[in-house]
């Protein structure tokens, strides 16, 4: 650790530690007395957040029972850059344009994805959020990517039908979403998927598609035990899935 590794926020002078925050408290702020109490409460919160000194520069009632604040203050915390750990990621997050370029460069054709929910699970929310153009969490779905061809088979697809379709479409990847978790149905179904693709005569002698499963109750570290290549847990976005697909199927530096 050296002094150069120690940083704190920069307002307009090195080391001044100045930051701004805004928040709403469920406290009325209409009358003068209410406002005084609300501002004092905001300052106390700022102090507990490590802002000292702190100043309420804006307080505005929102309706009869809330008050909005903007607070400036000085944080006295230090960050030691030499001790900062960057979480390592298995793959880089790419923009749709980067994903498309990687596919063009590495494959020289469209990447084919077949998606479905299998077994008795009728919930298409997950697979549709990842595949439909409309997308999810502010990101467009895989259909939006020019270099990805999406076949969405919908809900309650038998695993055998999924295998056959994946073979017919020459799928590079198969995406399966599972929402229902009664009696661990999601795990049973994922294992069945792994086995079916492993034993499918359609893929005897050729490489089977990349198997990706996802759903809110999956443990992302369970891929190997389920016999699939990748497991996504809750709050996965289409961009993460697309980035993973090119990481696995269209690696940087490869050319078609």
């Amino acid at each position, binding site marked *: 650790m050296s002094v150069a590794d120690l940083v704190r926020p920069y307002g307009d002078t090195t080391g001044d530690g100045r930051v701004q925050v805004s928040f709403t408290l469920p406290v009325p702020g209409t009358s003068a007395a209410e406002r005084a109490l609300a501002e004092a409460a905001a300052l106390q919160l700022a102090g507990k957040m490590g802002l000292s000194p702190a100043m309420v520069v804006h307080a505005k009632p*929102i309706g009869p029972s809330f008050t909005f604040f903007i607070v400036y203050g000085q944080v006295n915390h230090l960050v030691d850059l030499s001790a900062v750990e960057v979480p390592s990621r298995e793959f880089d997050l790419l923009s749709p344009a980067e994903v498309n370029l990687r596919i063009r460069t590495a494959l020289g054709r469209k990447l084919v994805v077949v998606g479905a929910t299998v077994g008795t699970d009728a919930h*298409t929310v997950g697979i549709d*959020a990842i595949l439909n153009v409309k997308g999810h969490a*502010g990101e467009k779905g895989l259909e*939006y990517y020019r270099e990805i061809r999406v076949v*969405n088979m919908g809900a309650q697809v038998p695993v055998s039908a999924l295998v056959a379709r994946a073979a017919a479409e020459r799928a590079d990847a198969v995406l399966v979403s599972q929402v229902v978790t009664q009696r661990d149905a999601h795990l049973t179904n994922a294992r069945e998927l792994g086995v079916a693709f492993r034993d499918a005569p359609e893929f005897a002698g050729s490489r089977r598609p990349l198997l990706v499963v996802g759903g809110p109750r999956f443990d992302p570290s369970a891929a190997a035990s389920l016999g699939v290549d990748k497991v996504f847990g809750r709050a996965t976005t289409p961009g993460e899935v697309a980035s993973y697909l090119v990481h696995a199927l269209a690696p940087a530096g490869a050319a078609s």
Partner: protein
Amino acid sequence: MKSKLNLDPEKVRLARQLARRAGEPVTQLARTHTTTSIERAVLRLGGLDGADADGMPWVNRVVDAVREATGLEYGVALPVWDAMVSGGYPDLRTLAEQAAAGQVKFRLPAGSEAMAAREQAVRSVERGVAIIDGQRALRTRMIAGLADPPYPWIYLIVATGDIYEDIPQAQAAAREGADVIAVIRSTGQSLLDYVPEGATREGYAGTYATRENFRLMRAALDDTSRELGRYVRLTNYASGLCMPEIASLAGLERLDMMLNDCMYGIIFRDINPVRTFIDQRFSRQVHARAGIVINTGEDNYLTTADAVDAAHTVVVSQLLNEYFAVEAGLETWQLGLGHAFEINPAVPDSFLLELAHAQLVRELFPGAPLKYMPPTKHMTGNVFAGYLLDAFFNLCGLMTDQSILLVGMMTEGIHTPFLSDRDLALENVRYVRSAAGRLGMSFQPDAFVVERAHRVLDEAVGLLRRIGTDGLLAAIGDGTFGVTKRPPDGGRGLDGVIARADGYFNPVSKLLGDGPVEADPMAEVLGGEPE
């Protein structure tokens, strides 16, 4: 309204003629087909409500049973009301329970029995349509007794997933100045082939559209309207596989505006194109009757396609939406045609381009309550830049006299809005409106803006010509809209499309005036014969 762009009226007329030419074959398709959801809507208007123990609506159970017994080529009404007459059931619900248990033998009646069934069917759906008429009259009375806010209406969204959380948020938003409340639906509801029942407290990034949720929210906003002395409108989404049913429920529960686009479900939800066009025609007939303002979804195209390159596809879609809407009986004041402020702010003159597009749409559809959507694609997480961009959106909307302003959130794309986000957004609108609300009157577009508007119109006419030659379904299959290809035989819901047989009977369509083709509904808009 005096034209600021000096658009050539002949070219505008040509654009409308081409839109009609592109749309007519699709209308013909809708006139000769029905869908499972249209038939379910008939039963809903006939008074059938509720769901079985698994939550599957009775209307689904009955339509499935009839489809299995007689097919749906003649419609669901003849077999159902024939069974009512001959079986002596006290009500549709009892019939539905018996049908689900396999105890009803549906048949296609003939002769006097068919006449009796028809008569009963019409009598039943007349009661449903009378409720819609009553709700429309009540809306008119409430607006007359309170006040109707002036344009632009301020449109705000709530989306907690829990109707009982949505209600206080919606009421708070109305008190803060919202004129229109939209309750966003649970993600993926458009792909459910049934309408969930009852009040719901859990949803994915939105709240399920159900009849009971509609009723609860409308009742709450009625209270707030009386409190505020102005009528607060309620919006939901008539889209997806159950579009005709949701339109019917909206009419029954006095929703005021409905998202209802002719192509949105096709492009963005991969719903079968044929299914969508058939469903939307019926939905629009119901909306016409219910006095509901539709909102179209052209803003969505610009979230996938580039807002400059694809500007003309927005105009083309608006002209198609107008043709389909007027053909289905909607009046101009009901056409909330959509568009959006989505040009990349890094593009030079981006604001001038936005002005050109917005003014063009205003002048093409002078009587329509245009719905203008805020930036979403270029909201980056920099909330400060986002707040500025939203202010420019508000300014553009006011300068070009847009009718419905969806209020932009500076935290768009980060999280569902905080209470304070909504408050700051309304502060933004209030400031721009008070500072520059009259700027529209004195604003004179310069040559750059005028030329841009003319160019977009020219490109729209060119594209409409191509669609007229290739066919609208082929154009959708080619990826003309939203850069997404949707072939006519692809997507969800095609299995719910049925060609009508010669004796097809639909008591609702009959009541909504869908008789043989009479006068040209577009005559007034076009002002003359097609070339």
